[in-house]
């Protein structure tokens, strides 16, 4: 049985991490850590429980950015009216994660640090161009989420670092976002494929930046910047959506799991990317949808 530390401030936490070394494990909501400990996959000597670090529990909707304290629970995010107004697709996607009990405990920081491939929020945040702030006694750095997530259950977080904040640039008013969560079995399953689409738009019908991130198929959210960047400034129409979908289908190399074979996930990815872009363009509202 590990020792337990329960810091109350960020600086106490960073001190504990600096002193703890690699046998120290951070626990936020505990939903992932408890599973790993119960499965015998994790034997930390010391647990640092973060639930009393209140200063990292916030949703700040500002003029240009939305900042989420790392210890904000998914349940708080889904219930936050300012977040729903500013980033409806993120708020909606978070509400589709697991079940209300898990969302009540799981935190957004914990979710990103777990780096599970079959998880909804990382893809949605990646499509929104989110960055994460990492702090340690050595200093602090801000990293794009797409660079923070590097492999299956793997991030660039150092042993002495804490993810403190998620920073999301606010999309222009006319931008469209959508998240399609496709479950190949029960509606309570994790995603077989999730597609998060962001279509930057100004008030003319020209599209700005387009970003599409796919969850559930690859180690980290799958994005094809070189494909979507070609759309910048172009008129995005049905053919364009289909072309992007086809490009994703060509390029993605999905894993096989109980929710679908690699070949199936590849096929469905292309179609759902197309559908998500079409939905982003045609749907009257931004949001997250179950399929």
């Amino acid at each position, binding site marked *: *049985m*590990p*020792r*337990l*530390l*329960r810091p109350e401030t960020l600086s106490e936490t960073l001190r504990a991490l600096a002193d703890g070394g690699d046998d120290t494990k951070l*626990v936020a909501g*505990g*939903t992932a850590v*408890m*599973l790993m*400990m*119960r499965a015998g996959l994790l034997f930390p000597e010391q*647990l640092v*429980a973060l*639930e009393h670090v209140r200063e990292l529990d916030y949703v700040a909707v500002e003029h240009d950015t939305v900042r989420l304290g790392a210890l904000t629970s998914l*349940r708080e995010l889904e219930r936050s009216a300012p977040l729903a107004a500013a980033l409806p697709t993120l708020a909606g996607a978070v509400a589709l994660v*697991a*079940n*209300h*009990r*898990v969302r*009540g*405990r799981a935190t957004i920081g914990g979710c990103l640090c777990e780096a599970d491939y079959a998880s909804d929020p990382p893809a949605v945040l990646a499509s929104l161009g989110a960055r994460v702030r990492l702090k340690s006694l050595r200093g602090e750095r801000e990293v794009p989420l797409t660079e923070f997530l590097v492999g299956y259950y793997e991030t660039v977080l150092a042993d002495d670092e804490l993810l403190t904040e998620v920073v999301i640039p606010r999309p222009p008013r006319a931008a469209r976002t959508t998240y399609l969560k496709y479950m190949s079995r029960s509606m*309570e399953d994790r995603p077989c494929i999730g597609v998060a689409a962001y279509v930057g738009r100004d008030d003319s019908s020209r599209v700005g930046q387009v970003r599409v991130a796919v969850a559930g198929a690859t180690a980290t959210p799958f994005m094809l910047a070189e494909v979507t960047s070609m759309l910048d400034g172009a008129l995005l129409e049905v053919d364009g959506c289909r072309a992007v979908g086809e490009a994703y289908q060509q390029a993605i190399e999905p894993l096989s799991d109980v929710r679908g074979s690699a070949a199936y996930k590849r096929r469905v990815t292309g179609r759902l990317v197309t559908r998500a872009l079409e939905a982003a363009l045609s749907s009257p509202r931004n949001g997250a949808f179950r399929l």
Partner: protein
Amino acid sequence: MTGADQAIGGDLGQRAGQATASCVVNGVETVLEGGLAEPATGFLRRLGLYGVRETCSLGVCGTCTILLDGEPVSACILPLYALDGREVRTVEGLESEGQLSTLQRQFICSQAFQCSFCTPGFLLSAQALLDATEGPLTDEQVVEGLQGHLCRCGCYESVKEAVRAVAARRQESDADGAQPTTGPQDAGRAAP
């Protein structure tokens, strides 16, 4: 898992400036005993609260649901230390003064269970849903509120009926005085 070096009292108590860590379980101040990172299910069952039943051990099935400060959580993946200073409600805490709650009575009336192994979890999440809302509930609201509760006997329709019946009645009268209703639960029956 109660070896001295693993006991929960020391570390937690010192932090809070108390001798022991504790929580309020169904209204009773209770000292936490057990390994600090052990799942809360073991501790609660040792208190004789057998309505807390672990079965998937993953937080997926909802059977071990408890209310932590009123919010449903899965006790099987809740570390014991997380109970410190909090208020815990289990199915045993739903009744008051020996009287079943309206929801419990409606579960019987609507026959919202068969084997009933999963029932405590359904009751607690449904109670949390009722506490967080007002007036009647739609089918969709109940499904959303009870997501993550598995019933292998397949009593979902009756559970929905029961929760919606309680929600529908709470406007009409003081909830505690409301009587369970017999819903449309009779199967269609036909003579040849």
